């Protein structure tokens, strides 16, 4: 829409400028024609004056058009133009026309006529062009808006459908996920899964993944209606708790976990926002890590850094990674909303969010708390 409007504006401005320049020249040419006509009229009057034997010779005096006659050496003879003005001198905002007089009536070889440029028609022209541009601007904005809506409506519809689907799905998923998780935890607590330990572990990982996706989707859907409660959150405890929560997933990939968390790091933040921020960074670092890779978390007063030794993100893809539903690596599951949520949280709290990544070496995510 912006590109369309800008290109239309440039095109119209260019066309208007060409039209204005040509019309202005035409208007000035018309004023020049009047000067030429007056010069010819003066010449015939000079002839009559030259032949007159009267004691006084009345030099024609036009109110709007000034004139003067000069001899062959371009020296001033007489006229309504001041004698102090040199033959070659030209004043701004005036039109000049010089014509030769032959034979030299009254000794004049040159006639110089001048008039002030009449700017009224030029200003009218400017006004009309401005009105036209304004009208065209309004018309093309409306047209652009209408066409834009027309063209993006299929895309908007599909997005709306997706949102509705997610809303419905999340609503329906809540209860079964909670049931699975509660039961798995209960079986673990009762120590009744000795025979099928691995299978239970997988169920636990899968349910936690589902639970996190559910939390993310709910967070996104309720983002605008959700009333945030800014409280002091102990980030050190939160990071450690969430790392413990994701331990089963990390163990599944046999990751080496390095926690470099300074104690009692606190932030003024909504607890759910902090949870979504930490969860998404940790789960991404696990999900996209290599088998037997390393996951390192550093938490200080200044920042939170999550490093993985995973597949990495190409430099070109980094600019898209924070967009909603954008997934660079399609081989892993998910909706592509994790980094979008992280980005949203960072924007809300004005944290600096930076991702450094090298393909096949790993990714470093930096969240720098505001000072």
């Amino acid at each position: 829409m912006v590109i369309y409007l800008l290109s239309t504006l440039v095109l119209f401005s260019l066309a208007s400028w060409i039209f204005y320049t040509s019309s202005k020249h035409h208007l000035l040419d018309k004023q020049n024609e009047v000067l030429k006509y007056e010069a010819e009229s003066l010449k015939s009057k000079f002839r009559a004056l030259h032949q007159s034997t009267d004691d006084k010779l009345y030099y024609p005096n036009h109110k709007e058009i000034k004139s003067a006659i000069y001899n062959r050496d371009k020296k001033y003879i007489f006229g309504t133009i001041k004698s102090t003005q040199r033959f070659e001198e030209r004043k701004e905002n005036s039109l000049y026309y010089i014509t030769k007089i032959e034979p030299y009536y009254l000794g004049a070889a040159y006639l110089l006529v001048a008039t002030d440029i009449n700017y009224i028609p030029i200003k009218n022209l400017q006004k009309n062009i401005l009105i036209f541009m304004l009208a065209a601007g309004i018309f093309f904005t409306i047209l652009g808006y209408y066409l834009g809506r027309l063209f993006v409506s299929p895309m908007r519809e599909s997005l709306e459908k997706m949102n509705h689907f997610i809303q419905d799905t999340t609503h329906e998923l809540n209860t079964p996920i909670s049931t699975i998780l509660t039961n798995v935890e209960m079986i673990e607590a009762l120590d009744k899964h000795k025979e099928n330990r691995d299978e239970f572990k997988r169920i636990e990982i899968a349910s936690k993944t589902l639970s996190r996706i559910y939390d993310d989707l709910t967070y996104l859907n309720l983002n605008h209606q959700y009333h945030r409660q800014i409280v002091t959150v102990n980030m050190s405890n939160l990071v450690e708790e969430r790392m413990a929560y994701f331990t089963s997933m990390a163990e599944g990939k046999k990751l080496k976990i390095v926690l470099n968390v300074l104690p009692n790091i606190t932030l003024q933040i909504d607890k759910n926002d902090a949870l979504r921020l930490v969860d998404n960074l940790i789960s991404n670092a696990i999900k996209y890590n290599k088998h037997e890779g390393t996951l390192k978390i550093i938490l200080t007063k200044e920042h939170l850094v999550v490093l993985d030794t995973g597949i990495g993100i190409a430099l070109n893809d980094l600019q898209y990674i924070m967009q909603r539903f954008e997934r660079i690596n399609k081989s892993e599951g998910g909706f592509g909303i994790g980094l979008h949520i992280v980005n949203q949280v960072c924007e809300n709290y004005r944290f600096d969010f930076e991702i450094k990544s090298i393909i096949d070496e790993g990714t470093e995510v930096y969240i720098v708390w505001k000072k």
Partner: protein
Amino acid sequence: MEKIVLFCIFSIGVFADFNQLERHCLSCHKAQQIPSNLIYRRYLMKYSTTKQIEDAMFNYLKNPKKERSILPAQFFLKFPMKKALQLNDVELQQSIKAYVEQFDVKKKLILENSSH
């Protein structure tokens, strides 16, 4: 005081030139009804600048010939060619200057009331 003296000297000089012009030129022109005014206009129409008019007059008066005259050739079918003036160069130039000064159209030009 100096200015007054200079003006007086200048005025006396001009008066002397006009006196000389009257004596050597215009007295005959008047007697023969030669329109000096119109002759000057012919010079003006052909030469435009005072310098060129004076040079042309000087050349003609020193050595009057049809081709040096400002009047048309047919004029000399009816009237004889005048004789060369018996004036020295300085006197002749002063008289010509006085002549040009006397008939100068610039002095006659005034602005009419503005029109349009």
